[in-house]
């Protein structure tokens, strides 16, 4: 029981003429992220589709832009899915939140913020979901630098010495060299994934 994407696109264009859409394979790309809540509300309440169940909200990183993907289903009519996408740049990653329309977006948008850094405006509780608040960086982005857990850094050594724990001399030297060069102890990543 699938819904054809062209049908949905035509319906949205007839009822909401200001919204610019584009078909990307089997999904609908909303050109302007601000139109997203309008489109979602229309799809939820339209008697033809009744897409009242938001199954999944995901983020994705395509190097030049970030994307937020939504999968909608209809529980009343037992049909689906309809995929919506929204694209933003990394510098200005702001997407309006779908929480006023569908409550299931609440925790999933927090996860997308935590892992990709897409800021959802209007979310009632915009905090990180999995990582702790002081964590910096957005781990699932392709350019995230992961720490090297075998090498101690200056902050670690200071912390250990205030508690009276002895640190071997070569570790202290290494930490000082890293700090002097202004670098973090970053885990080396291979040039390409395992072939």
């Amino acid at each position, binding site marked *: 029981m699938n819904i054809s994407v062209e049908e949905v696109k035509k319906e949205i264009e007839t009822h909401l003429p200001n919204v610019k859409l584009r078909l990307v394979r089997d999904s609908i790309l909303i050109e302007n992220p601000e139109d997203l809540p309008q489109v979602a509300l229309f799809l939820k309440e339209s008697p033809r589709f009744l897409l009242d169940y938001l199954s999944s909200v995901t983020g994705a990183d395509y190097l030049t832009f970030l994307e937020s993907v939504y999968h909608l289903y209809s529980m009343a009519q037992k049909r689906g899915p309809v995929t919506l996408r929204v694209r933003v740049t990394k510098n200005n990653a702001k997407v309006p939140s779908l929480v006023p329309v569908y409550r299931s977006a609440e925790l999933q948008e927090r996860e997308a913020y935590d892992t990709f850094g897409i800021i959802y405006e209007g979310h009632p509780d915009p905090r990180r979901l999995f*990582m702790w608040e002081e964590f910096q960086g957005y781990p699932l982005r*392709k350019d995230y630098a992961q720490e090297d857990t075998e090498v101690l850094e200056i902050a670690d050594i200071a912390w250990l010495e205030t508690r009276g724990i002895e640190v071997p001399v070569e570790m202290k030297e290494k930490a000082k060299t890293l700090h002097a060069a202004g670098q973090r102890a970053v885990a080396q990543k291979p040039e390409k994934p395992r072939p």
Partner: protein
Amino acid sequence: MAFTKNTSSVDESLRTELAKKGVLWTSLDFLYNWGRRSSIWPMQFGLACCAFEMIAAACARYDIARFGAELFRASPRQADLMIISGTVTKKMAPQVVRLYNQMPEPKYVLTMGACAISGGPFVDGYNVLRGIERYIPVDVHLPGCPPRPEALLHGLMELQKKIASQEILKAEWYKKGLKREFPIPELGPNGLIPKFNPEVWQPAKKNPRREHYGQTILVGKKLKAPDFELAVTAKPIAPRAAA
């Protein structure tokens, strides 16, 4: 096993002879250790999948109660053994060390599963701690993913052998000025501070992953993003007909 047997000054054959006649002749060490090892109370600390094998070991088929360890205490203040079963993440590590500090002496740690020993299959992750032995001393390592309940019982028996080889006069917990509480790591901007406690664990001189693969973690980067609009779609499979 590498532990020395608890050789008491009591002759074994003489002891068995007397036991047949109903006379018990033993050393205080033996009695003390027998009491301690036959009634280890583990702390209920199931983190992930290995917890299910721990629960299965406590259930009727692989009965852990016959080893005296059926009473899984919820509070660390009442337990002697902490079975760390499952992956320890960086967010969870301070809590594990805190719980270890709250346990009264004598206390033992048994890491169950590959994840608790060294990170397991998730070792490349940014939130996974590569083994809890970076912060607290561990007595028994139990490899497996997950180890069978029988393996857990084997680990428990090894721990019992270790306990049987300890002596009261050399007991660590009766010494003065004993420091068996470890500092609790804090959550920093990129991971834990400190990354490991050098008094407890230090990285090996030669990292086997670096030798074999060339780098320590295996998360690579891809340089080209997929472009959906240009490529061809796969043909969708027709749903199977209802027979």
